[in-house]
């Protein structure tokens, strides 16, 4: 038995959450220290998984298995492949940076970070992280679903308690209802697969590797692909089921927005891929055109809606819809380049959007407004945040030498292989994105500072700078040296292509 690194990563946040809840509520700094220590521990382990993953052999690695409910064929069955290993690293990175930017400070008058009940905040956030890690590493369909629900549920509390006071109740309820309806629909499909496998093979098991070989009939796959895929993809923000997501982003506190856009939306896309496409490959081929249509609309429409936003955070929220549309677009190609691009885009968008929300949060904490015309001149006071946002913006625009280009280019290549017209239409989003990103950078960071903000804005803290640097590091390294991540994602893609019967 090897060192059980995946289960340690997965359960670290849970243990930390319990420890924090047992601590006295007024010991805020100690609670924060526990949170940070746990986050660093998880980050180091997930980086270790990422760097020691053997790229020369495809398939699942760091596999662990413990019986949980043998009678129904449920086990704790963990393992990562080339698609999920980067996502585990992403979760570690976002968790670490999310803790840093929510640190807060009780002594200063600047209302940055989380001052109100940090103990409960970090505990809920870590339960969320527990669920996220669990989904990415689970090879058992039941456990995947179990962790999926765990990841969704704390969102409600985090938004409703610590969210933006004006819309938090509406947004939290909308988000929860959307996501639960989606997951219930998926659950029906999951159970259908479970029973059909039992009928076909006589084995009661949620083991996804067995289900891959269960030989579901074409008709079965064609019927169940759509509910399963779309049910999960709701969390991935797929058009036309995206509209919970910008509301949720905006209402959530900064660290939760980072988690939400950076990791949770990947969770939806990942589950849609793992369960929808990999277990029902024929269904995926059958419905390919529809997914491609939805995704292409999301890409262009999301960019356009982001373009017309006056609220800084809504702008970032809709840009996520557009970028997640690219992930779905890559899935819908079902070919080598498209899937490779999607795998990379999930990571790239994760760090990029986490950075966006972090900077938006830093500005909102100081300016107390997110209306773009009411902001200006931030570059003079927070130059570091400005550079961070510009780098994020360049990633978002798909500028070469940054990770966004490395991810988007193969997606478009994949689309060319299927339907060139979609590539042409989706490419319009690149120019729209460039326009709104540059316009906002100019206004918010370089415009004239409005008089009522003069003197109220302070520079970001050293912890904020560490968070920004960490996030920028990945965007630049992948952009300059794609081989940092590409070969790993390729091994995961090979696995999917094998299930699809070659590309």
């Amino acid at each position, binding site marked *: 038995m090897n060192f059980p690194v995946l289960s340690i990563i997965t359960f670290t946040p849970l243990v930390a959450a319990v420890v924090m809840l047992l601590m006295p509520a007024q010991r805020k700094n100690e609670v924060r220290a526990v949170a940070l220590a746990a986050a660093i521990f998880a980050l180091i382990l997930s980086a270790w998984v990422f760097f020691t993953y053997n790229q020369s052999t495809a398939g699942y690695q760091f596999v662990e298995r413990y019986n949980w409910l043998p009678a129904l064929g449920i086990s704790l069955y963990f393992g990562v492949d080339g698609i999920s290993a980067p996502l585990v690293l992403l979760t570690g990175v976002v968790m670490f940076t999310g803790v840093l930017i929510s640190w807060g400070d009780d002594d200063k008058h600047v209302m940055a970070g989380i001052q109100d009940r940090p103990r409960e905040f970090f505990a809920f956030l870590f339960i969320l992280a527990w669920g996220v890690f669990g989904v990415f590493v689970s090879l058992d369909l039941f456990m995947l679903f179990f962790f999926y629900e765990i990841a969704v549920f704390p969102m409600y509390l985090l938004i409703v308690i610590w969210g933006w006071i004006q819309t938090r109740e509406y947004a939290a309820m909308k988000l929860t209802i959307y996501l639960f309806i989606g997951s219930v629909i998926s659950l029906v499909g999951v159970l259908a697969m479970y029973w059909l496998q039992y009928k076909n093979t006589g084995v009661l098991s949620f083991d996804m590797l067995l289900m891959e070989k269960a030989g579901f009939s074409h008709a079965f796959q064609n019927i169940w692909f759509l509910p399963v895929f779309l049910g999960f993809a709701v969390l991935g923000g797929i058009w036309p089921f995206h509209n919970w997501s910008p509301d949720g982003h905006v209402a959530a506190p900064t660290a939760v927005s980072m988690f939400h856009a950076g990791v949770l939306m990947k969770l939806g896309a990942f589950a849609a891929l793992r369960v929808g496409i990999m277990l029902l490959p024929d269904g995926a081929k059958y419905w390919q055109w529809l997914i491609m249509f939805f995704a292409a609309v999301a890409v262009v429409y999301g960019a356009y809606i982001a373009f017309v936003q006056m609220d800084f955070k809504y702008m970032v929220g809709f840009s996520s819809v557009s970028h997640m549309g690219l992930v779905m677009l890559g899935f819908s190609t079902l070919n080598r*380049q498209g899937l*490779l691009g999607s795998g990379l885009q999930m990571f790239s968008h994760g760090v990029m959007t986490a950075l966006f929300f972090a900077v938006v949060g830093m500005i909102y904490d100081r300016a107390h407004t997110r209306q773009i015309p009411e902001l200006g001149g931030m570059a003079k006071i927070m130059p570091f945040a400005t550079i961070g946002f510009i780098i994020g913006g*360049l990633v978002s625009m798909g*500028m*070469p*030498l940054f990770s966004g*280009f*490395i991810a988007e*280019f*193969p997606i*478009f*290549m994949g689309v*060319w*292989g299927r339907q*060139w017209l979609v*590539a*042409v239409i989706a*490419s*319009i989003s*690149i*120019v729209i994105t*460039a*326009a709104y990103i*540059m*316009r906002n950078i*100019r206004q918010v960071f*370089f415009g004239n500072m409005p008089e009522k903000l003069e003197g109220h804005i302070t520079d970001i803290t050293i912890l904020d700078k560490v968070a920004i640097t960490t996030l920028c590091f990945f965007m630049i390294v992948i952009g300059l040296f*794609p*081989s940092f991540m*590409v*070969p790993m994602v*390729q091994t995961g893609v090979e696995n999917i292509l094998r299930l699809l019967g070659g590309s």
Partner: protein
Amino acid sequence: MNFISTHLLSTILFFPMLSAVAMLFLPKGENKLFRWFAFVASLVPFALTLVAWFQFKSDQPGFQFEETYIWYQAIGSSLHLGVDGLSLTMVLLTTLLTPLAILASFSISDRVRPYMMLFLFLETGMLGVFMALDLLIFFVFWEAGLVPMYFLINQWGSANKDYASLKFLIYTMGGSLGLLLAVQMLGVLFGTYDLVTLYQRWNSLEPGSILMGMSVHTVKTIAFWAFVIAFAIKVPLWPFHTWLPDAHTEAPTAGSMLLAGVLLKLGAYGFLRLVLPFYPVEAKMFAGALALLATAAIVFGAFGSFGQTDFKRLVAYSSVNHMGFVVLGIAAAAYAIGTQDATIALNGAILQMFNHGLSSAGMFFLVGVIYERTHTRNLEEFGGLFPIIPIYGGLLIFTSMASLGLPGLNGFISEFLVVRGAFPVLTAYTAISMLGLLFTGAYILKGIKKVLHGPMNEHWAHGEHKLTEINAREIVVMVPLMALILWIGIYPAWILDVINKAVVMLF
């Protein structure tokens, strides 16, 4: 030394970028240090380019100093660098103009460090386009070079900078969309982005075969226009030129120097490196249309320039006019490919690229010199300045004459070659373009007259507004430019030899 000789191009390419990153670690607030550091850092690539220039064997076909590094294997792209006579000329132009532009911006005192860093990043971006032998790498640097330029205009520009910089960015990115899509299509079709391989395989497609549900002919025609529009915007060709006067006028002086001196050449280089080799048939078919647009650029550029009252805008429109000759030469060569006329026209076009780089950089710099002293560019507010600033006046007249095409200076040689090559091929267009030349003379003389001659504007002669003469640093910027202008004008063989051999071997 051994490392540098085997990695010559990559050293030239990445040295500016690494220097820019190194600038981050210099102590805060040392403006003088930043300036000298950037200047010295930009001299290194220039020195190395001279090494490459003298080691270059112009008789040898194909690319030299080739280097290949793994970059993005999964989609078949590698960092493949190499130069031939065409690209080496452009590399020389870039590495020459960048130190001059940095020297020209020693007067900048606002946020010197990021300013200098952006210039060094920009140099890497421009050099990458000229050195790339991989279509994706070409595109990467093509796009990446936009970002530093955008911020230079947006942050250090004059009054209307926001509008101008966004227009510049969106125009160019929008134009590059077609290029991006066409590049992707080529990559998907052939599984590689290596230019040498693509040239062969793309041109050996069966004319009757079907690609993506369309005939090869249709696909090639669409892809041809996708490439052409991207490059035409960059050149810029009429009617895609409207971003240029705005961007040039609002950019800081050194930004305009590089914008006119090098960035416009990227578009023309794209025509030569990609359009002609990839689409010889389509280029021949649409040569007339290109020539029409080029002629329009020449004539309307000259008219536009003549109508300006802003000195910098006048120079900006002159770029449209001059770059029109480059495209006219290319169109003629596309039409008559393989003949002697085509070779002459291409020689002229490439030399014109180099020459325009020298003279437009000089002109923009001189406009900047007077703008810094008077804070106006309005031609009506100058007048009769020659007696106050005689040295400046001399330099301005010299550079203007190069731009006008006075025999004995460089502009004459290249424009003559273009016209000589194009005349037998596209007689009507060439004849009209030569009428355009008449207006080139008119607007240049108008500029000189409004600034230097006529009744003296007493405002600049006495008291606190008294104009100061051009200083030693500024003369140092002009000397290399003027020396080359004169040298090419009198003895063009040294550079035409390299260009001509490249043209003969390429086309």
